[in-house]
């Protein structure tokens, strides 16, 4: 039996979805993109072009729900399947788009540069419980108009895992599309083997900007999977109650599903989000709050009920350093997400309200993910019955350390974390330097930096990536890419 957590009764899910439909029909959403408005209008939605308001109908919502896939797969740069977003399979991916990186030596947060991003990619490439990359940091040493595509470029050049990403502008998407085509070799190949997931975010409450809605339909045209990231803030720009926030999340996410499915029926979608409660003491949006995590898990239940694979920004922390708060919030989130069966869990490595990324935290979180994935395997008998022979062996040998049964199942039954997790006797711990968690994680970061092996992507594809990125840099007035100094 697989352990599973539920927050919502089916009757409550249906009530929430019903209320969200009423919101979409009666109040609609504000949508600042004429092309998308026309598309919705063509399919029977009522559109007020003056106010940019679109009012959905049950039939357009039902049509979208009838074409949205209930599962899809992702493939790495080499074309190998890495993700199966179906039936509660859980994958972890780093949190994304931090404006700062946390320096281990100084403990200070600072804007990241190319070197930091490349170190991050090298690390993700080797962390076994992190299934994909995300464009986790925004490099500050390139023109800001190309910061979105440059992140993806570095990920595709140095890493092999698929990438969760997003465009900051409409033009940015074109470059990011071309980078993917450089890796796959053509549109059909990209459609057949998706390489990325793009985040497309409605704005709370009930709005779509020109850029995000255009990004959504651009992705749909190429069947690029999209994760819809609705962000209601309970008590601020969403009702204070968790149910009220869920109604808003459902309405905003359903509006995105409709846009994507009308643009190209069958576009793969992750029913995702990044909601939070609003902490009225600090005016912040705590990702580590238990209520934030409860809303994440609950909307994932709604997404699954509606027949879609799911995603959440959960398993991250609001702490400023890699401290006990970082550990408790991250592990609580990762555990709840896994027990809920959220398919793509975005969070590892992230601190400070999704604004600061730490390589050391990513290493620690990789262990949290490993333990969580082990937990999902549950408890199952493995040659345990009848028990008598095993206990006869134990009493006769006095231990089972070298029993065949032990050797057969040891590595399956017990997850062995890396050296970041301290399980040594105190004397051994002291003998090995008496290192703190952060110091051990930093040792792992440095070890993996040295152990990195270049991506096996073909050189011709790497060169195409470079050509496309350099041409974008030249267009924006940059002589050369900072990355070239690293090669």
């Amino acid at each position, binding site marked *: 039996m697989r352990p599973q957590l539920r927050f919502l009764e089916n009757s409550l899910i249906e009530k929430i979805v019903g209320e969200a439909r009423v919101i979409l029909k009666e109040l609609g959403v504000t949508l600042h993109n004429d092309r998308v408005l026309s598309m919705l209008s063509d399919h029977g939605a009522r559109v007020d072009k003056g106010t940019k308001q679109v009012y959905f109908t049950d039939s357009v919502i039902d049509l979208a729900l009838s074409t949205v896939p209930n599962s899809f797969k992702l493939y790495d740069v080499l074309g190998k399947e890495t993700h199966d977003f179906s039936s509660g399979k859980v994958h972890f991916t780093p949190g994304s788009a931090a404006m700062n990186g946390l320096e281990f030596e100084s403990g200070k947060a600072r804007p990241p540069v190319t070197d930091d991003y490349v170190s991050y990619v090298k690390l993700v490439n080797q962390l076994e419980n992190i299934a994909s990359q995300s464009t986790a940091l925004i490099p500050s040493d390139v023109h800001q108009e190309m910061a979105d595509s440059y992140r993806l470029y570095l990920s595709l050049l140095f890493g092999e895992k698929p990438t969760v990403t997003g465009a900051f502008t409409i033009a940015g998407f074109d470059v990011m599309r071309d980078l993917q085509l450089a890796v796959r070799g053509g549109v059909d190949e990209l459609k057949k083997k998706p390489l990325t997931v793009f985040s497309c975010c409605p704005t709370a409450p009930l709005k779509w900007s020109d850029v995000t809605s255009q990004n959504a339909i651009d992705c749909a045209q190429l069947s690029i999977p999209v994760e819809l990231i609705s962000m209601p803030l309970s008590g601020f720009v969403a009702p204070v109650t968790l149910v009220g926030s869920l109604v808003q999340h459902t309405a905003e996410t359903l509006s995105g599903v409709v846009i994507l499915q009308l643009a190209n029926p069958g576009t793969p979608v992750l029913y995702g989000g990044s909601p939070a409660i609003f902490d009225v003491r600090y005016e912040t949006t705590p990702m580590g709050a238990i209520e934030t995590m409860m809303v994440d898990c609950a909307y994932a239940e709604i997404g699954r009920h509606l027949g879609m694979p799911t995603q959440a920004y959960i398993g991250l922390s609001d702490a400023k350093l890699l401290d006990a708060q970082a550990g408790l919030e991250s592990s609580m989130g990762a555990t709840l997400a896994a027990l809920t069966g959220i398919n793509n869990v975005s969070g590892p490595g992230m601190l400070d309200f999704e604004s600061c990324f730490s390589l050391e935290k990513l290493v620690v979180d990789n262990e949290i993910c490993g333990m969580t994935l082990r937990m999902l395997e549950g408890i199952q008998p493995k040659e345990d019955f009848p028990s008598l022979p095993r206990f006869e062996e134990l009493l006769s040998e*006095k*231990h089972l*350390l*070298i029993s065949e049964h*032990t*050797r057969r199942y*040891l590595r399956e039954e017990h997850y*062995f974390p890396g*050296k970041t997790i301290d399980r040594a*006797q*105190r*004397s*051994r711990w002291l*003998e090995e330097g008496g290192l703190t968690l952060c110091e051990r994680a930093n040792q792992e970061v440095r070890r993996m930096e040295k152990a990195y092996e270049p991506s096996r992507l073909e050189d011709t594809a790497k060169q195409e990536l470079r050509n496309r990125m350099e041409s974008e840099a030249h267009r924006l007035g940059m002589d050369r890419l900072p990355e070239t100094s690293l090669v």
Partner: protein
Amino acid sequence: MGTLSEISKHIIAGDASSVPSLTQQAVSEGLPARDILQEGLLSGMAVIGEKFKSHEIFLPDVLMAARAMQAGMDELRPLLITEDVPSLGKVVLGTVRGDLHDIGKNLVSIMLKGAGFEVIDLGNDVSPESFVDTALENEAPVVAMSALLTTTMPVMGEVTDLIRQRGLEEKLKTIVGGAPLSDDAARQMGANAYAYDAASAVDRIRELISSE
């Protein structure tokens, strides 16, 4: 060299069924017992030790290798005596008086034998006199004591006191281990070394014997 590296390879694989015949084969090839021990059996165990320390393999793999090593040693022992190859050292081992917990002590015994030491295992509930007298009778330079209980731990101090009273400090070294022990506790009771686990017990005992 071929047979010795085969022995080493099968030790690493924990293959107790092949090591004796390979050892016999090395003997029949006329290789000196010392070389078979050092370059075959022990060199395999050295690889195992390194892999264990780096977490590449785990305790069951070490114990399997130790068992294979034992099987080889059973073949080789008569020849080592004939060729007058000195043993790596003898260790008198036991759980102290009043304490019946021997799981950790047994693990140390297996690891020591696997590393090539001769072990005289006195079992559990061993009196101070028995530890010291057995060591003297067998010319063992090391007494290794285990305790799980805080109430039996002081018996280790009685053993070190007895060694001092008899003026045997230079001849007989002590090492202690077990859940309630620590470096500080070992020092306070006058022990020469402390080991926090079975693998480190082998290293510490090797150091005690080589420092003689």
